[in-house]
């Protein structure tokens, strides 16, 4: 079970309530924080050294270029 961070946990709970009216219990807040950490770490590590030479939503063009 992910640990409840004393700063991140309450922050996520407060945002959930303020933005969406959702009551997140501490366990759920800890799970959300852990998943956000994993996603953030993945983005940061994979983005390292990549030159963004394509448009943000130009994925169809990428596929076209790679077809053969």
């Amino acid at each position, binding site marked *: 079970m992910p640990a409840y961070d004393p700063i991140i946990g309450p922050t996520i709970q407060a945002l959930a309530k303020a933005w969406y009216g*959702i009551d997140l219990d501490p366990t759920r807040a800890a799970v*959300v924080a852990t998943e956000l950490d994993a996603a953030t770490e*993945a983005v940061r590590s994979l983005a390292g050294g990549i030159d963004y030479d394509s448009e*943000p939503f130009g994925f*169809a063009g*990428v*596929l*076209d*270029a790679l*077809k053969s």
Partner: protein
Amino acid sequence: MMADLIALSLVEVAEAVRSKQASAVEVTEACLAAVEHAQPRLNCFVKLEAERALAAARTLDDELARGHVRGPLHGVPLAHKDLLYRQGQPITCGSKVLDGFVANETASSLERLEAAGAIYLGALNMAEIALGPSGRNEHVGHCHNPWKPDYITGGSSSGSGASVAARLAYGALGTDTGGSIRIPSAICGLVGLKPTQGRVTRHGVMPLSSSLDNLGPMTRTIADNARLLGVLAGHDPRDPLSSTEPVPDYEAGLAAIDMTSLRIAVPTDYFYDVADPSVTAALLASLDVYRDLGATVIETRFGDQERIRHLTSLLIRVEGASVHARWLENEPELFSTEIRERLETGLYVPAVRYLEALRLRGPLAREFCERMFALADVIHLPGVAIATPSLASLEDAVNTDAARINDRLAWCTRAVNYYGLPGLGVPCGFANGLPVGFQLVGRPFSEARLYQIGEAYQRATDWYRQAPPL
């Protein structure tokens, strides 16, 4: 006679109708009888359209009597995942959130199939909102695996997998956002294609994650799958993101491949990390078949696919939360706890992270393709690497265990969605009495090539001929 008819493949039954060895009505009646027999045990269908199907079959028989063949699916009964819009009809998307929803248009894919002569049998069970690799559904009841009804079908296209495997329909449409065609295809013993992103129109399909959703065919054989893709593929003005890439004849030249020049890449990292030994044995045996056919198998490291899986999850959760935000905020009780919690995470992902995950897609797909397809012509991966869980084991699992099992069911499929590549699931044996399948992954728009490589395996084996004991 009826048992003989449902044993035919899609291509065989189309030929039987066209040559008037069987009528469309006879074929449809055979499917409906099979559904009536199997439905209480499998719960594949959420809506059976028997009268509509028989009426369509009679019309098709009349047309054939006048010498008119609508197309390559004339008189072939199909059934589809319950997320395709049909004008004036409700859909559930396996959920309660669409209660009262009636579609005001018909999905382009349904129109294409019916213009080619297909008969629509009804709507199939699926995981709630198409989110869930186990295929379980607390709202409409779980779909059961025809090989072992106490086990999951895989999902989210659960009914598509179970119904085609159980010989209730000759083919089905599923959708695949992170593996939802390939996972149930592997677990139910089917051929299932996740096409290249944009290859098949998504107009009229209830979305989950617009960046990653794909519609594709699930069938018993490679040739059946190729026939359905031939009808489905091609640009659709009603789906601006559908590709304008020309559509080849997928059935032509299925056997025309020189296996001695084929190089197959196999991972030495990540994909088999969670594999069950009995599943691994079947997968490795399929590689031996390819070696015997003359192909070269190249073992190689695939790199950091775990992080790619995280990026895929991020996109699914954010886009899924966006689609379902109004219900999450106002009527969260409409979702099962598991699905609500999975979606909720998407509400809190910073927009910057989401956009980074999207922007990384192009460069990472480019890097992956250039690296892998310089080395090999095709990639061979597990469809599902873990032993298929029982329904009870997931029922008993506490949340974190269930999340872990779900994660591992989609362990081998999600990256293929992120890269936008085609993935073809092919059955290759059994483990613990349940089917095992591999997936062939190729360059963008290489579906014809994947079919050839899958067909070569199918001709050398007979897994696809085996039917569950119903």
